[in-house]
């Protein structure tokens, strides 16, 4: 029951989701990892070190410099013949690609999987995480996306063989003509151990620098609510929730965030939640492990200097 994982990567670096996806599917069968792109030698080498990987397939070509769904799906369709499972992380690429691939193969995909209960039994959240669906699939093949944050990472130290594959002759009707990326040296949101999130109450893009300085102090990734993103205080790729990224950090610090259903959908996997809010009745305060009631503009600078006093280093 062979498994093929198409791994995400960005700026020449393998996504931290990859070892988690490998670990999640390791029991299903021998795991091959495919990387697609240009100048991705280091990505392939990183994938080869993940424990449990049998082989790394590398598809390099100009057509995949900025891969587009129709080309990637067409390539995967040819490779899928040899595998029982084709798997991606449930990030933006997996979400756009796997349903397209599944339809081409006349299969019903199972997406946003948070638990693999058996070779053909999966659990996935519905209704913004307010219900969990357990499904079985008796299809000949399984097209899956997994929420990386729900799984632990595989160890490293492997040296799997790396094999180039031919991707010439695959082209795409759509072309990437521009990318606007968010400049930030904070950790990957979807797999971060600590996340500091800011809501609309932060009040401005400058105000968000307060959130960023606390995040820096803690070596944390930064999250935001849809309201904060819509207001232009934070970039869209920081949005956490039903429509944004799903996080499962050890610690989530929510600052000036009410805790709407759609935001909670993204943070259910957090081990501990701290809420800082002026309203003791805010839904997020009601479910936080620790809450501090007060004005964020007074609290955050004080918190940073108190943390300095504790000598905390990350």
């Amino acid at each position, binding site marked *: 029951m062979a498994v093929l994982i198409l791994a995400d990567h960005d700026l020449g670096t393998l996504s931290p989701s990859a070892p988690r996806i490998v670990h999640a599917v390791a029991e299903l069968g021998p795991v091959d990892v495919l990387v697609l792109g240009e100048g991705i030698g280091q990505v392939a080498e990183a994938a080869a070190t993940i424990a449990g990987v049998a082989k790394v397939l590398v598809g390099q070509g100009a057509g995949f410099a900025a891969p587009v769904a129709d080309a990637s799906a067409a390539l995967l369709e040819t490779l899928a013949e040899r595998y029982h499972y084709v798997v991606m992380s449930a990030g933006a690429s997996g979400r756009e690609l796997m349903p397209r691939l599944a339809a081409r193969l006349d299969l019903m995909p199972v997406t946003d999987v948070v638990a693999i209960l058996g070779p053909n039994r999966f659990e996935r959240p519905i209704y913004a995480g307010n219900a969990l669906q357990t499904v079985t699939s008796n299809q000949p093949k399984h097209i899956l996306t997994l929420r990386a944050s729900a799984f632990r990472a595989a160890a490293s130290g492997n040296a799997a063989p790396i094999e180039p594959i031919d991707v010439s002759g695959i082209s795409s009707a*759509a072309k990437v003509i521009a990318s606007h990326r968010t400049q930030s040296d904070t950790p990957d949101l979807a797999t971060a151990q600590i996340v500091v999130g800011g809501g609309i109450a932060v009040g401005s893009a400058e105000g968000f620098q307060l959130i960023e300085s606390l995040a820096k102090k803690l070596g944390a990734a930064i999250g935001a609510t849809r309201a904060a993103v819509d207001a232009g205080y934070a970039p869209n790729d920081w949005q956490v929730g039903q429509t944004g990224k799903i996080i499962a950090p050890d*610690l989530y610090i929510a600052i000036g965030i009410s805790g709407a259903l759609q935001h909670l959908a993204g943070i259910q996997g957090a081990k501990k939640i701290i809420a800082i809010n002026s309203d003791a009745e805010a839904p997020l305060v009601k479910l936080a492990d620790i809450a501090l009631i007060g004005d964020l503009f007074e609290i955050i600078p004080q918190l940073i200097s108190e943390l300095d006093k504790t000598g905390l280093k990350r």
Partner: protein
Amino acid sequence: MKILVAVKRVVDHNVRIRVRPDGSGVETNGVRMSMNPFCKHAVEAAVQLAEAGQAEEIVVVSIGPKPATDVILTALAMGAHRGILVETDAELETLAIAKLLAKIVAEENPGLVLLGKQAVDDDSNHVGQMLAALTGRPQATFASEIKVTGTGLEVTREVDSGRQTLSLPLPAVVTADLRLNTPRNAALPQVMKARSKPLVTRSAADFGVDLAPRLTVEKISPPLERMAGKTVGSVAELAAFIAGDVSQMEAL
């Protein structure tokens, strides 16, 4: 250009849903239903393209039970021209929905198909991509901006690292994200006018599509409840808690 917009009737996004105690599903009896929010953005995008003279006709289609007529009427009130209800009482899987929509696309031959990026009940995020595959059209998912450029489209999409702009030829399939626009609320005269716009009902069974589910839903269960914690009285206490928690993390 003709635009086809697919809209789904779902439990209203403000409703806090309840899982039936017997695990058979989510309680939808007596629950407020409305148009899936992402579909509203898709309809609004179509109407704005028509207002800009870039589309002549907007056809809306919904697949679902008779009351799904309501979301078609909402779209007609927003400015769509005609509606199609593909009637079924079954809860169809996304693959079956995409196959039915592909039949409608074959009949209507729209230059652009607009859908929501995801339905907030099943949270699948499948149908647009599947429809693009079944109709052999390029796709642009999670759109936050759509520009018509003569023979094609330029679509800005929300991706994991920020935003990306795709250029794609028509005909194409685009799925709408929430920052694409601000959907209008139709005024009463438009709501009244919508009732006189053409709306046909057809049976899902008449399309010759295999609608049988591929997956068996074993059960629907509620998620784990979070316990309320405690409120601390000072920033120093909070800092001590964070420092303690973080040092434990490092010990892992």
